[in-house]
């Protein structure tokens, strides 16, 4: 029952008991404030970690080789294993239906590159057209490598944003020729990568051209694949693990490597790493929730405590009110109404204040691991309601007790 009369009565009481109201409100508002900030930081860390993964496709599987560490079938350890086009073709042919993107890579570090008077040293990677998606690169202008480039050994280059800034100083680059290790390449595209500057410090050229320019025959430095997307994370993980295991076994068989040799063939399954990080992220999330819920419980206890004290303090007043004809119901409602009103207002004040602080301070605390700290408004709203409800419940029992004791006993209370 929301009678205007009772509202007036409540407002009068609140206005004349400012300290009591303030303390009740403070415990609620600070509880909500802390919860929202904690959840927001948790979310920020989650966003931060998630963005760390954006630099490459999250389901990327990379393969590269090293030196054998075990003797096997009469071969000595210390043998260098070299990937080549055949390895790539075999892997592709075997999994043609499951692969989403795939590319062999032949790269060289520190290639001197110049455009007119400007020059720099960059990593040059010969790749296939799918590599754009394996790297999660986005073209700002121009195009990526296409099949025609690969088939006809075109001397075209896609340069990273950093390279573009270094060599071209923001001037037009498309159609211009840069010189890489003495060979002229035509710039056809510029890309950016969510991985940032480190990932934008590269030059991509067609794989075939790369193998020819660097006299690599059909050698590959590495291979990269992604599998077709699956609806469920678990399915995707299982599929990628199966693919990884099969690929490793095939490569080891072809290059005569011991199955237990861990150095010769290395496969990095991003999805497995991702799973580890997602698990960590979930733990962080639950931790923050745990702390937040404890904060709310502390808030509830605080509100309950204050409500108990309020009712105790008002016992005599309740006696007076009853002596002049107050119904027990009106006594309970008086206390509940005030409690609900104060906790609700304070709760929302805490909520809005915390959102305001997030908005103001959020951008200042952004680092690699905290990005865009924010909170689900629905969750915060629900928490306020829970606290209001808890305050009402906490107020109800002492109010009910006070309303049902004999007025003469309440009046005696000092």
């Amino acid at each position, binding site marked *: 029952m929301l009678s205007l*009369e009772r509202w007036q009565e409540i407002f009068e*009481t609140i206005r004349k008991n400012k300290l009591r109201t303030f303390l009740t409100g403070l415990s609620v508002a600070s509880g909500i404030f802390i919860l929202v900030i904690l959840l927001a930081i948790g979310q920020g860390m989650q966003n931060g970690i998630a963005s760390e993964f954006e630099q490459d496709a999250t389901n990327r599987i990379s393969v590269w080789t090293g030196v054998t560490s075990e003797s096997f079938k009469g071969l000595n350890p210390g043998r260098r294993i070299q990937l080549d086009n055949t390895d790539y073709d075999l892997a592709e042919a075997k999994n043609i239906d499951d692969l989403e993107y795939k590319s062999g890579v032949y790269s060289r570090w520190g290639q001197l590159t110049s455009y007119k008077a400007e020059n720099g040293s960059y990593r040059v990677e010969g790749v296939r057209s799918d590599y754009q998606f394996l790297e999660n690169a986005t073209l700002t202008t121009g195009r990526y490598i296409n099949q025609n480039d690969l088939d006809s050994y075109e001397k075209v280059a896609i340069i990273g944003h950093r390279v573009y800034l270094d060599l071209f100083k923001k001037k037009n680059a498309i159609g211009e020729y840069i010189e890489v290790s003495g060979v002229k390449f035509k710039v056809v595209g510029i890309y950016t990568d969510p991985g940032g500057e480190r990932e934008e410090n590269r030059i991509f050229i067609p794989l075939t051209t790369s193998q020819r320019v660097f006299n690599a025959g059909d050698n590959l430095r590495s291979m990269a694949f992604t599998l077709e997307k699956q609806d469920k994370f678990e399915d995707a993980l299982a599929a990628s693990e199966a693919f990884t295991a099969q690929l490793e076994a095939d490569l080891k068989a072809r290059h005569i490597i011991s199955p237990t040799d861990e150095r010769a063939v290395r496969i990095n399954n991003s999805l497995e790493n991702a799973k580890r990080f997602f698990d960590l992220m979930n733990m962080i999330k639950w931790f923050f929730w745990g702390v937040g819920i404890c904060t709310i419980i502390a808030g509830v206890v605080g509100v309950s405590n204050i409500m108990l004290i309020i009712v105790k303090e008002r016992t005599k007043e309740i006696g007076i*009110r009853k002596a*002049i004809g107050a119904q027990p119901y009106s006594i309970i409602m008086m206390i509940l109404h005030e409690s609900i009103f104060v906790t609700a207002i304070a709760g929302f004040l805490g909520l809005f204040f915390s959102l305001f602080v997030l908005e103001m301070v959020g951008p200042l605390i952004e680092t690699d691991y905290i990005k865009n700290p924010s909170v689900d408004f629905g969750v915060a709203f629900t928490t306020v309601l829970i606290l209001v409800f808890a305050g009402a419940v906490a107020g109800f029992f002492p109010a009910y007790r006070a309303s049902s004791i004999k007025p*003469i006993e309440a009046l005696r209370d000092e």
Partner: protein
Amino acid sequence: MIEIKDLHKSYQMGANSLHVLKGINFEVSDGEMIAIMGSSGSGKSTLLNILGILDEAEKGTYHLDGKLIKNLNEKVAAQYRNKFLGFVFQSFNLINYKNALENVALPLYYQGEKRNIRMEKAMHYLEKVGLADWAEHLPNELSGGQKQRVAIARALASDPKVLLADEPTGALDSTTSYEVIELIQQINDEGKTILIVTHEDDIAHMCKRIVNLRDGIIIDDSQVQQIRAKKIEHA
């Protein structure tokens, strides 16, 4: 107006039971002004509390305005208190965070009156007790006599049939006491039934009838010649 028969009341004090009222028979008719006297522990306050439905008797009957008051639930008891009874306490029992006017208006709130009507009526009663100028003051800004007059105005605000006063002058000096009693006499003149618990002889003789209690029974119940408080004040 009030009719009680064979009223008993005892309090549990730990293992012992303290028999406070031991069979009270007593009638009050309209327009009476009665002093209930007795030394402390005689049961006079207990009797008044039972009459005011603040407390309940164990045995015996109590009729208020023809209605039997027995085993009332709190809801009905609250209605009766609000409609039939006005209380004045020794310690005033004003709500300290409400000003004089709001205190007087409170019983009307529980009668469901609209705010402007409440305030208007409350002001009327404050004028009646001579405190219209103090309407906006909080109780702790008022003197004892003023507080008691506010309490009387509050008791009158709900237009009760019976005014019950428990040692209304107990916390006041004699001049202020007489002023308060004079006010109560005026109210009685207007036809309200009034019961005053007191242990002061002079206050008792300003009523029209004195009921004397000792150890839980009425030992004397007699009409007296009322002394007007006004005369004493000006003497």
